[in-house]
């Protein structure tokens, strides 16, 4: 798994690539919490994520809760069909704000 964090127009964009599984979810969690800690809106770009499991989903949930708790927001962008399947299984597809792409998220002033 790789990741890249950048800021654009006051929004933190974190892009993951590869597999967010039991091996990598601790790192993903750490990165996500760091981003949320910046107290700005966070966009998680999942376009490069080929696989995500329950531990990866748990990291996303934790980051979302932290963001909401701090009065900020966290949205998911470019969710692949397989990642979408996992979110649906976890009944979390309605919990997360899911947008088509990072560009759309920035236009909308996320």
């Amino acid at each position: 798994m790789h990741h890249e964090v950048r800021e654009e127009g006051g929004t933190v964009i974190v892009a993951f690539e590869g597999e967010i599984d039991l091996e990598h979810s601790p790192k993903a969690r750490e990165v996500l919490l760091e981003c949320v800690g910046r107290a700005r809106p966070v966009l998680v770009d999942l376009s490069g994520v080929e696989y995500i499991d329950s531990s990866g989903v748990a990291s996303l949930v934790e980051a979302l809760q932290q963001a909401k708790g701090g009065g900020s927001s966290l949205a998911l962008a470019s969710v692949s069909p397989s990642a979408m399947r996992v979110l649906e299984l976890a009944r979390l597809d309605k919990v997360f704000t899911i947008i088509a792409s990072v560009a759309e998220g920035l236009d909308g002033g996320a």
Partner: protein
Amino acid sequence: MGRWAGGSCRVLGGDRPKSMTREQPTTTGAPPGLAGKAEEFSGPFALLADMTRRFADSLELTPALVTALESIVSQVGAEAGSLWLVEPAAREIVCEASVGPSEIAGLRLSLDQGIVGRCVRENACQSVLDVSKDPAFAKSVDEGSGMVTRSLLCAPMSGADGAIGAIELVNRMEGDGCFTVSDLNVLEVLASSASLALANARMATAAAEHKRVQRELELAAEIQRALLPAVDSPGFPIHALNVPARTVSGDFFDFLELPGGRIAFCLGDVSGKGMNAALLMAKTASLFRCLSKTIDSPGRLLAVINDELADTASRGMFVTMAAGIYEPETGGLVLANAGHEPPLYHPREGGFEPIEALEPPLGIATGLLPPEGYPESRIELNGGNLFVFSDGLTEAFGQDGEQLGAAGLERIFEEFSEASIHDCVEGVMSRVSSLEHRDDLTLLGIEDSRASATRSSDSVELLLVHRFEAIAKELSGMRKALAEALAAAGADESIRTDIVMAVDEACQNVIRHAYSGKPPGDVELTLEQRNAEVTVWLRDFAPPVDPACLDQGRDLADVRPGGLGTRFMKELMDDVSFAEPPEGGGNLLRLVKRLS
């Protein structure tokens, strides 16, 4: 009872009771600014504070009550005192502790007797200045103890449902020998404190008892599950399932192979629910297992079980039961039915024929049957199936809020009529158990194995064996190997994704829970295909895990770590269950997915 030796409490009016001295300054330390005042704090308040502390500290209530009684007697300056508890079932009051010149602990009075009885009955304080003028006074107590009672003061200990006991003081030693209003107030306050402590202790005991009963129920359920036959081997012509409505079940089934390849089977339903039904179930199931090895007629077998149950019947309980012997070689079976829900024969061409039973259930009376026992029906399966089930299935509620009835159940059977008997029983039970139901659900299905042999090869093909160390880093490689083997077997992409994800979650549970806190051992993954169904066997070498861990995660709100993964597994696969642990220990998890 009677821990206190009695008779030794010296009562000196005005003396500060021993229990009022600060014996444990560490636990009673007053706030710094109040230290001086706390020392001066005396009389009834100090006594109350001291008693409350003792009750809170005490693990055993009786010694604390005895100490409390000693303190009260001393505080008020009475000659003697006694503490009484109500035994509602016997309508009696029992002296739990006594202080004074004679020991009366253990003495019993009827609730109608004595001043103390009146105190409890009326749940009100009693003050009697001269007992000789009160006809209610129980002289028998004085006669037994040799004491002379002149005046009495008695306060109830009250619980939620009236008095649970009383504290009685006898003969004031000071002044004119009559108890005062202030004595009564002190006694009343102290009795309240004692009754609170008593109520708390009883509640704690009841909670512990409840926990113990729950644990025993779980053990009973475990034993019951062990009574049911172990998982049948692939291709076996009989498959059955039981889903209890409560912890323990009143339903049961069994099947066992007899010499010559025949199979004896039964399914029964014990009247009532709960523990007594479960015990009768265990008895009936044991009788069946034992007798079916020697009695080769189901009708006579049921008659023998009937006589045995009727001889030892209790409280009008009875058992409905269908029993039979199946010959896989010919596809023929003999069935006898003791008052059970009619089994359904489902011919290959379609439709259903109920096998009606007109005979009474087991365990009601002996001598009702002809010598040859219950009548038998002979059924040729001719490529069809036979379903035996408990009325829990027909009484489940359909989407329309109406009970399924035989017709509703038949519609569900029809949906699975092309499946193997294993898949059919699993599928029907999964459907019915998802409906609202109040009773135990049990279903046993028999297929004509000659027909299933022509329907498919039924052979099991080994697709993959992959062994790896139970660490997170190995999961990626496992997923790749599994996905490739599934692709080679012709599984389409969405099914591949689902299976890989479910197996990944199962492996995570092994890594995080089964081997938790231990050096990781190996996991061995075996992938098999049987017709249009793949099975993943996941074997680890960790200490056995509780199979009930699969029960968590059913709740949609459950996103606890581990719970989410378990839910994924269950939603992604058609069946997830623990199998009999393999030789050499460890756990064996079975994950099944239909490819179509």
